[in-house]
């Protein structure tokens, strides 16, 4: 196994482009090292991107948007009060991953690039409209988060490409987001269902919405029908029921050790309602 710690994303990209066999990028390592130790994936080339300048930064941009470094950890995000005020759903989703120790290492980028349909931060990012910069042999491109995963453990990144930054849009006025997941325990588990909701109000009416589901299909889903179900409503019971129905209808889950098809389909609707209520309350400036 070859280990590299490049000083720039261009260098990291070049190393990956020229590598043979299995290549993995190492940020927090909370998936890569676990897979390595359990012999699920033994990389031939390991490229550590933590030593690139600025990768741990959480930057508040002049236009109100945020840029999150690829090695910024869940703990650093949770401790960043302004980020949490703007995007509580994204920060809470990240904070749900693993234990306190894992939070000291785990990153948004790693959670995204691991390609798990059950990744907690991904539905929250999709709902929030987050994009990432992808650096590759032919330069940089900006890609929506929902276009990165293509199936369990698979991404749309091609050989030599890696995510080099995460961009969260400006929160703006009258908006709120939330992420909820279902696990049978209270913490340190993997989502059986995850739902991210992000919305903006015009008075009491939902003007814009994005709803994303996790762990109910081969990839995290952005569900337009869920958004349609609540846009134009005041999140009354009829709109919530329509939201739940749309969420359940969008599910294409599997039966496995973590949950059944029937359970995931049902609970996706339940959580969509609950997450929407929290996002709505947050958009109204209420504590939730």
């Amino acid at each position: 196994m070859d280990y590299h710690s490049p000083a720039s994303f261009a260098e990291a990209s070049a190393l990956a482009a020229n590598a043979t066999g299995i290549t993995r990028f190492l940020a927090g390592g909370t998936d890569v090292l676990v897979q390595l130790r359990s012999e699920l994936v033994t990389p031939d080339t390991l490229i550590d991107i933590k030593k690139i300048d600025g990768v741990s930064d959480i930057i508040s941009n002049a236009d109100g948007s945020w840029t999150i470094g690829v090695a910024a950890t869940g703990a650093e995000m949770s401790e960043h009060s302004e980020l949490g005020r703007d995007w509580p759903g994204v920060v809470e989703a990240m904070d749900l991953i693993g234990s306190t120790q894992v939070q000291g290492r785990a990153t948004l980028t790693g959670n995204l690039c691991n390609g798990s349909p059950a990744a907690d931060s991904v539905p929250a990012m999709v709902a929030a409209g987050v994009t990432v910069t992808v650096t590759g042999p032919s330069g940089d491109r900006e890609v929506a988060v929902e276009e990165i995963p293509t199936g369990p453990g698979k991404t749309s990144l091609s050989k030599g490409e890696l995510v080099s930054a995460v961009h969260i849009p400006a929160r703006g006025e009258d908006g709120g987001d939330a992420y909820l997941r279902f696990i049978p325990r209270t913490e340190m588990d993997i989502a059986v269902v995850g739902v991210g909701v992000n919305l903006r109000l015009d008075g009491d009416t939902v003007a814009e919405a994005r709803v994303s589901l996790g762990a109910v299909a081969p990839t995290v889903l952005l569900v337009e029908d869920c958004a349609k179900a609540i846009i134009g409503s005041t999140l009354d019971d009829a709109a919530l029921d329509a939201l739940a129905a749309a969420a359940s209808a969008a599910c294409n889950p599997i039966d496995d050790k973590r949950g059944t098809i029937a359970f995931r389909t049902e609970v996706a609707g339940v959580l969509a309602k609950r997450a929407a209520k929290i996002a709505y309350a947050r958009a109204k400036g209420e504590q939730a």
Partner: protein
Amino acid sequence: MALDDRKSEFTFVGTRPNRPDGLDKVTGRAKFGADMSAPGMLHGAILRSPHAHARIVKIDTSKAEAHKDVKAVVTRADFADVPFKPGLEGEFWNVLENVMAGEKALYDGHAVAAIAATSALAARDALKLIKVKYEVLPHVTDVDKAMASDAPVIREGAADYSVPEGMHPNVVRYHESGHGDVEAGFAEADLIIEDSFVTEATHQGYIEPHACLGMLGNDGKGELWCTTQGHWIAQKTCAALLGIETSQLRVTASEIGGGFGGKTTVFIEPVALALSRKANRPVKVVMTRSEVFRATGPTSSASMDIKIGMKKDGTISAAQGVFRLQGGAFPGAPGDMTAMCAFAPYNLTNVKQVGYDVMANRPKQAAYRAPGAPMGAFAVESVIDELCKKLELDPVDVRLKNAAYEGTKASYGPRYERIGLVETLEAAKAHPHYSAPLKPGQGRGISCGFWFNHGGETSVSLSLSEDGSAQLMVGTPDIGGSRASMALMAAEVLGIPYENIRVTIADTATLGYNDVSHGSRVTYASGLATIKAAKHAVEKLCERAAASWGIPTDAVKWENGCAVPSGPNAGDFDPRPLADITAHMGSTGGPISGHFEATPEGAGVSFGTHIVDAEVDPETGKTAITRYTVIQDAGKAIHPTYVEGQYQGGAAQGIGWALNEEYIYGEDGRLQNSIFLDYRIPVASDLPMIDTVIVEVPNPGHPFGVRGVGETGIVPPLAAIANAVSHAAGVRMRQLPMSPPRILAALKDNG
């Protein structure tokens, strides 16, 4: 072994001093199984079957043997030729077959070969060089399917004499007991409920994986360091499996990171020794968590049918149960224990119970706290709860009405001596928890539980030092704070402070035989042995004092740590403290020690009653345990903090078993969840504060009244939680674990 000098007033017993092993454990100084190393040490790794059931056609180890880092490869041929016998009679053969597969791999994870190499990584990598040719056979993992006529036969000839003719060869033991006439009893009942229940296998879930360091020379002399609940059984079993003399193998027990019954046998220890013998170097083997789940003892899964008849006043007129327990691909599932414990809390005129020990393609079951009892209690106490509900009777009153007491003929045969079930029920009824209001969506459950407890072969040695301190050597590994309890009991007898006594878990070369730390026996049996050994030393102390005073030994008594004349007629001498006598022991007759070697027989059965509140989310089926109270008879709590810890631990493990823990097998017979991420043990935030009430109804068979407390605490939780959840959800839950998908499905079925 009733003793007529039972104490009721105590100085040290019943206090809560700091544990003697605490500092070592919090500073990392304590040495656990994997913490030992030796010069020239090799690392072992084990190749395991990926198939649930397969004939081993050929194992080619040549490439592995040729690898430069590999120093030894072993297969079944490197072990002794232990004769096959049916049932548990052939337990050495069963253990050998489990430790290293013979002609067939019998479950996913079954060991088929092992390697010793110069590093752990090299050993792991070299496993890939071993080529095994398998002929995959049909498999069965479910207990009911394993008993069906078309089930694949795991092994012909494994059944013992007890199995009725015509049963499938996978049924290997049969138990039937009871008394009275159940049919006549059912005829008297105002309401009869008949129902069926299933529970899935769970793992003991000890945090420390199995680990050992073994060295065995070609001269048949060996040393073994391992994490175990019983190093004498490890010594005896390893010697038998390797064909060496028992006494030539010295076994030392490490500090132990949990056992709960699962470390009462051997898995990797004989393999490390076989590798060492071949390589002529020490070999260390440490299991991964996945190996622990796949290849060490989970508890049995169970399928049970219960029929209970009750009169309108709550009297149980008849009770019967059929208990089918699956214990992996070997005899040993505790169907007999389940049957015997199921109705044991009750004073029944008519009772009948049948238990089956059934083999399936799963790892060999190992003991897990009160093995077999929790699942039986789940089934029986669920039916009692349903009867109470239908007859509109209070569940504690009904249990009080039927509770066993001193003189009751137990459902499994003997008459009880003094027992404390009624006291636990009365304490439950009086407890504020029982009358506390419930919120909407919450339910309350009650259950009783029983466990036999055990005595077992026990050796203890106590020696006094010149400065008046004492060393106590016991042979039962400390899995529940027993070093503190032993020191308290010795302090009580000797009359010297707790801190002046050092308790050591001695190795197999230092003491006579000791049974495993199981059966809740340690505080009872090693405690009794400690008291007797200390009294033995006290007799000698009195002799020395008598000699110094020139009076007969029987004119001296021991009081508050001093020899004193037994009365005014004995003479007028100043008390001689223990340290004063030991200071001169070298010149007054030599070292002073006390010993005990015997098998105490008065363990004293124990009962508990649990009260649980549960809240079920009707939209997701998720359960939260909102309040939990354990009430249990300890006989006499030597170190009450440890007793409370045992109660809380039993409840915590019961909560896991009831709600989320389970072995999940795929269609291919492979275990799907062999890591803690997917084998869902409760995390700390899943648990409420678990309140405890220690009831003390002294055990007549122990000098201080001790009853074992380690196991009874896990018997009531499954039933108590199921009753609470069933009330909260409004639908009877008959299958464990009551995971959210199962509860949500039950709610949907219920409309």
